């Protein structure tokens, strides 16, 4: 019996709930992965490995078919190559992000700062650099699907925001704010321990599920994205506060 036998709470935007057909197959599956990669061999290999690990997979080889495939398959995670025929991965990422908060993991052949940052800024939650180890990829996907365990259901507050952890809603004075699941998790993580300063490494472990030190730029980019959504003035953050040389903490209410 896999610990993930139960259908996982699927991250979604409160505004656009979507339902998944609960079939016998998907009950045993850990989730559905959409693989967008132009390299047929790699896409097939990815499918084989993912299926072995108990994921459902769908593959698409062109960027301009990605969105349509996304609509058709309603995946729980998107694996997205950056170099794609048709339209490139960055654009695909933006298209998907416009209508869904579904976790997106980029597959990139370049580890250069600029590509990674562009990808993350266009909405990707995480990235793996080719050539990656299959186990590493599975760990990334699992971390994105598993989500933050909602241990407490009491409403959390951070700054002037109220977080309904169970309902996956963030509101400011009754107005809901749309966050991707990752941004939501990041905010919840900070809000749960309002007095603790979280180093980037700790956040990587708690929110992204990295066990070893990884790229702290992930944290930087997502904190920026989160701030642009929740702060009154993203230049002078009051909700997610930088502690210079250490990391981030929740702002005082």
């Amino acid at each position, binding site marked *: 019996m896999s610990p993930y036998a139960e259908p996982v709470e699927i991250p979604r935007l409160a505004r656009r709930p979507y339902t998944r057909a609960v079939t016998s197959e998907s009950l045993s599956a850990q989730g559905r992965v959409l693989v967008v990669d132009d390299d047929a061999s790699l896409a097939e290999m990815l499918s*084989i490995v993912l299926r072995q690990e108990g994921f459902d997979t769908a593959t698409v080889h062109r960027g301009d078919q990605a969105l349509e495939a996304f609509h058709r398959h309603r995946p729980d995670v998107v694996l997205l190559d950056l170099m794609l025929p048709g339209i490139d991965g960055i654009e695909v990422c933006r298209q998907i992000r416009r209508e869904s908060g579904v976790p997106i993991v980029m597959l990139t052949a370049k580890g250069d700062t600029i590509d990674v940052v562009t990808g993350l800024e266009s909405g990707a939650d995480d990235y793996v650099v080719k050539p990656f180890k299959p186990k590493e990829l599975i760990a990334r996907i699992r971390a994105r699907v598993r989500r933050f365990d909602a241990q407490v259901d009491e409403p959390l507050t951070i700054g002037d925001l109220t977080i309904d952890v169970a309902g996956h809603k963030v509101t400011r004075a009754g107005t809901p704010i749309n966050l991707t699941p990752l941004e939501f998790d990041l905010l919840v993580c900070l809000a749960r321990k309002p007095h603790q300063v979280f180093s980037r490494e700790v956040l990587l472990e708690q929110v992204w599920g990295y066990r070893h030190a990884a790229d702290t730029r992930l944290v930087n980019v997502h904190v920026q994205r989160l701030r642009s959504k929740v702060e009154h003035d993203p230049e002078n953050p009051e909700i997610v506060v930088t502690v210079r040389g250490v990391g981030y903490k929740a702002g005082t209410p």
Partner: protein
Amino acid sequence: MFRIRGRLALRHTWAFWRRSIQARVVVTTVLLSIVAVGVVGWFLMQRTRAGLLDHRVGLVTTEAASEVQDARNRLSAASGIDVDASGQRRDLVEPIIQRGQTRGFDVVLAGPVSEGGGRIADGGAEFSPSLDVTSVPESLESHFSSPGASTAWTYTQIRSQSGGQPASAVPGVVVGSQVELPADGQTYTLYFLFPLQEEQDTLHLVIRAMAAAAILLVVLVAGVAWLVARQVVSPIRMARQVAERLAAGQLTERLRVTGEDDLARLALSFNQMATALQGQIRQLEDLSRVQRRFTSDVSHELRTPLTTVRMAGDVLHDARDTFDPATARAAELLQGELDRFERLLGDLLEISRFDAGVAVLETDDVNLVDVAYRVAESSQPLAEKRNVELAVHVPDHPCVAEADVRRVERVVRNLVANAIDHAGESDRIDVYVGGDEHSAAIAVRDHGVGLAPGEAAMVFNRFWRADPARARTTGGTGLGLSISLEDTHLHGGWLQAWGRPGEGAQFRLTLPRRAGAPLRRSPIPLVPRDAPHDIVRQIRPADASPNPGPPHDGTGPSGEER
């Protein structure tokens, strides 16, 4: 204090003198022209003075001669009629004195001439009023000490007196001549004193005019020298500036060519040289760009298939239990080699990123003490596998440098892995951390095979191996130290190696407190304290010298010595 300032000013002047051709040309020209003008002026002065005096003396002697002749005529006309000698003397001298007053000369009648007597100072001389009789020099007087002396003249100072007191003195000529007084048959000497005031005034005027002309001339010469030097120097200065800019990489810089003179030809040749250099550099740049591009492209293109192969290998590896032993071993080998292939590809990509100059620093304040502990912790499994002990020695204060923590950790990890790789069995590896207000450093010491002379500079070369026949045990790619050196350069730091055969090696990373700030010294000596004593003694003096200049980190032979 004053002396120090004076010395400083002197040094500044000396530096200016050495550096400015223009200043040297102007100063030497002015000095030389001052000498030339001085010599010419002195010569002219002498000539003018001699000419003026000769002319005056000629006139004066003629006038004196005519006066004497006149007096003699009068005496001979009056001879015998008047026998009163003193009256005759007065008659003789009075008209001459009167004429002298109107014509501007003084007269002295002295005598009579006799052995040991008849001197003016003895009294009894007739002379012009207000004349100081000492104006007649004794040398002339002694010339006329006996009768029958010829007419003679000399220069003197004509002193006048008023009320018995000497009043003023002017240069003058005194002419003496003897006359015989018929009344007593004695010989008397007549002195005529002609002032040279006019000639002196003329001479002063000439000197003033010549001095003014000389000053003007020198200034003019200085100006001309300055202009000429400037004309020559300014193109040279321009050439220097352009050369500096060329050296700084602005290959399109050229000199402006005007005219067809030597300087224009120099500029032309200079430009031709620059063009030739530019062509060569461009060609080399293109070549290396193509090569770098190729490395980068190959590495990138390899990544996707490698990912597929890697995954396939993993699938096979995971399923190896179900294979027969040979196939299972093949799957294991495949896995191991894929790991190595991947590391190599990663390092190649990293190197190509450095070569392409796209590597960027993301700096933050990094405490090297933390880095040392983190690296030691992550390297522990490898160390244990090789039965090597890892010891970290840190000071009781943080050693902070502004650095990219990812890169610094990678450098230290590489150094530690390299040390483990080269350490002997049951060896100890020491990691030292040190820091001061200007820099922070980490040194990694092993007691393994060490480095042969000259190898300390080569260890940072790509794919370099101390012994090509020796197997790599920890699966290093041969690029680790090269990447570390590039990482260090990116920070403006030093990465240096020390080693002796059989004594082990020490690698030292030094980072400036502020990224890019110049490094003067490292908080940790490159030569380890536990190195053999003779080597330490041999090295210490150089190490202790305050400013031995930046050592060639890794790339030069001095990296071994410091």
